[in-house]
């Protein structure tokens, strides 16, 4: 601890002497995280029509971004830049000052929200994952880290980034890419790495038709900071580049003969890109031995949740294999479902294989099967919604939508 603080103080003092950034120059941090949270998530349909994908509710009391921010908190990363663009209001207000994830520490840089901005000569939206970071090189320089961890704000997993950083340092790597084995038949959906026995990356192909390996990139990178900044600056003036990490930056570094290594992850990891994967991943939280277990006291998922009273279960209620958030009132029957904070389920209502997002109301006698009900949506009395027919799509009701009899 002492050594770390001294390092920070010294480096802060140095910068002031140099007069480069003046009194607001931050102290040095070994590793900062930059979290890409600006994507539209358009395949999530009505769930992301009003809010950014990282702000979508998940797991009865969380929002998707909680998982990656909790990973940061649980890995001791105290400086996080969150790059936002699409529908950022709810996301910004939810992140607040970052204190819910202990990202308001006095020693670290805490959390910084980094939206696109205008300069004297130009203004531009983030045009790609790499471009978003390029436009925030100022944030990197201000923090002056040795390493930069690039993350996505819309993935669900638990990972100790410190371990990944240790591996990165052990390999003396320029870039370390987190990978995980995927089913061979799925491999062509991912960026696929081939590696030697030491984990050194030999080849990388984005969504290959005939994959040589089943190690998929998770979109989690640790870069040596200096190299990343140089590479991004060069990429920015490359007219042919799409300014994307997977498509441009990684192939370029590989071609230049840089030291690229993998960090293999074997736990649960999902990018809930579509309605059906959102639904499936929600169901993964259930059952006696869930694929994704939320009960992990040693690696807590932190959230900026509101304080609501415990869930109330009525006298005629029946609950079987469900996660139920605070403030929920369950008077009817719920089976194999996620019932979030402040939901109401009326008498005689039956909910099966569904996900009810916060504040949603299902009135008496309604029957919901394989559906996702948006935040503060209302299903009126005796309405039937969804189908047990697995060949049909999961039914989705958008936020604040009211479904009346005859509208289903």
């Amino acid at each position: 601890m002492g050594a770390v603080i001294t390092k920070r103080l010294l480096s802060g003092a140095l910068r002031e002497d140099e007069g480069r950034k003046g009194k607001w120059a931050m102290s040095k941090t070994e590793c900062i995280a930059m979290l890409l949270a600006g994507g539209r998530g358009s395949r999530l349909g009505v769930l992301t029509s009003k809010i950014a994908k990282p702000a979508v509710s998940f797991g009865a009391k969380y929002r998707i971004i909680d998982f990656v921010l909790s990973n940061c908190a649980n890995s001791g990363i105290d400086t996080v830049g969150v790059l936002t663009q699409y529908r950022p209001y709810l996301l910004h207000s939810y992140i607040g000052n970052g204190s819910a994830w202990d990202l308001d520490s006095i020693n670290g840089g805490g959390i910084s929200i980094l939206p696109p901005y205008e300069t004297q000569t130009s203004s531009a939206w983030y045009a790609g994952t790499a471009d978003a970071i390029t436009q925030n090189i100022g944030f990197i320089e201000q923090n002056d880290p040795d390493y930069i961890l690039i993350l996505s704000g819309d993935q669900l997993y638990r990972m100790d980034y410190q371990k990944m950083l240790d591996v990165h340092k052990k390999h003396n790597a320029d870039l370390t890419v987190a990978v995980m084995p995927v089913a061979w038949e799925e491999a062509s959906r991912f960026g696929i790495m081939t590696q030697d026995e030491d984990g050194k990356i030999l080849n990388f192909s984005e969504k290959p038709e005939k994959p040589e390996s089943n190690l998929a990139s998770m979109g989690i990178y640790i870069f040596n900071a200096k190299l990343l900044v140089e590479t991004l600056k060069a990429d920015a003036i490359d007219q042919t580049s799409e300014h994307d990490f997977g498509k441009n930056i990684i192939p370029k570094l590989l071609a230049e003969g840089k030291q690229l290594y993998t960090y293999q992850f074997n736990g649960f990891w999902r990018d809930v890109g579509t309605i059906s994967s959102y639904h499936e991943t929600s169901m993964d939280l259930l059952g006696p031995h869930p694929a994704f277990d939320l009960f992990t006291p040693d690696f807590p998922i932190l959230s900026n949740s509101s304080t609501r009273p415990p869930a109330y279960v009525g006298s005629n209620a029946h609950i079987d294999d469900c996660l139920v958030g605070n403030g929920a009132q369950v008077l009817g029957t719920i089976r194999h479902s996620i019932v979030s904070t402040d939901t109401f389920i009326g008498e005689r209502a039956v909910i099966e294989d569904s996900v009810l997002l916060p504040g949603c109301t299902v009135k008496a006698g309604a029957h919901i099967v394989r559906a996702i009900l948006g935040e503060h949506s209302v299903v009126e009395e005796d309405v039937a919604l969804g189908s047990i027919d697995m060949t049909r799509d999961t039914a989705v009701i958008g936020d604040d939508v009211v479904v009346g009899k005859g509208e289903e």
Partner: protein
Amino acid sequence: MQNAIGLITANYSTKEPSVLTESRPIASLPFLGRYRLVDFALSNMINAGITTVGLVMPYNYRSLTDHVGAGKDWGLSRKKGGLFNLPGSAFGTSRTGSRFLVRDLVHNKIFFERSHEDYVILSSCNFVYNMDYRNLISAHASSGADITVLTQTAKGKDEDVIGFDVEGNRVKGLKHGVVFGDTAFLDCFVIGRKALLQMLEWYEATDYLDIFEALSSDYERVNVQSFNYEGYIVPVFNTRAYFKANMDLLRPEVSDELFPVERPIRTKAHDNAPAKFESGSHVTNAHISGSCRIYGSVADSILGRSVVVESGAAVRNSIVMQSCIIKSGAHVENAIVDRNNIVPAGTELRGTPDALFIKGKARE
């Protein structure tokens, strides 16, 4: 932003010997699974826009400071104002039945002197309610009273509640204990900050009295008005009342009034998973807190955070506090089980509705 500061007396312990309050003041008694009694007093203050709150500490303050910390969860960790932990009299205030001991106020004079707001609102931690104090403060400001006390017509006999003799709205005297129809004091009042400082000077010599006892010969001179509160409120001075107050919340209309979304009761945030109801569980008429895992059966009960009810175990008409494990086949009925207890497989903890079985806190 209110033109008032708050003071909460958190140093009341129950008169009755109870394992529930053996190691903690009433203020930090767990309530409805995830709250502690002090949350109601604190939330009522901050929901009225009060940003400076003094908390008069009990001698056994560990659980209380653990809970309130720097006041962050109530928005009271601030540069201007915030939460002030103030020293309170060592032996608490229960022996004398006092709520607002003059000594506790005199010792903390500096808290009042350093403020600039016109009013002080004072409250104990012994009542469970959710009230918009702005109504009380504005009634006080417009009435011209020296003190405005929050009252309600007593619905029954209660020896621990303080009653006022009133003529119209004017308080003329005080008594310990109320019966049906009396004007019950809800342990909350508003006073001008300067008037309070003046009174502390008057009554400093009798600092062993409650401020309303000290006032008893002066009710002609000092204009004390009552302000009637119509909403749901329940006093918690003993185990029986504590149990009843919890069980009242099983009626949704009471729960809705106490916990409206727009005026939340805030408490220390804990980051735990949602409650999980496993296959084969059977739960009816119960409040189940976050991170509980239910495999067995629960009826007419309140479960605190992270309680596990194993399969074949049953909980009936009981309060089971945080982190208890009810092992397979165990039966808990008419009981209050304090934190961290493991009820072994096949055992019974059984009281009667009139004589509850009470199991004190177990070691972690």
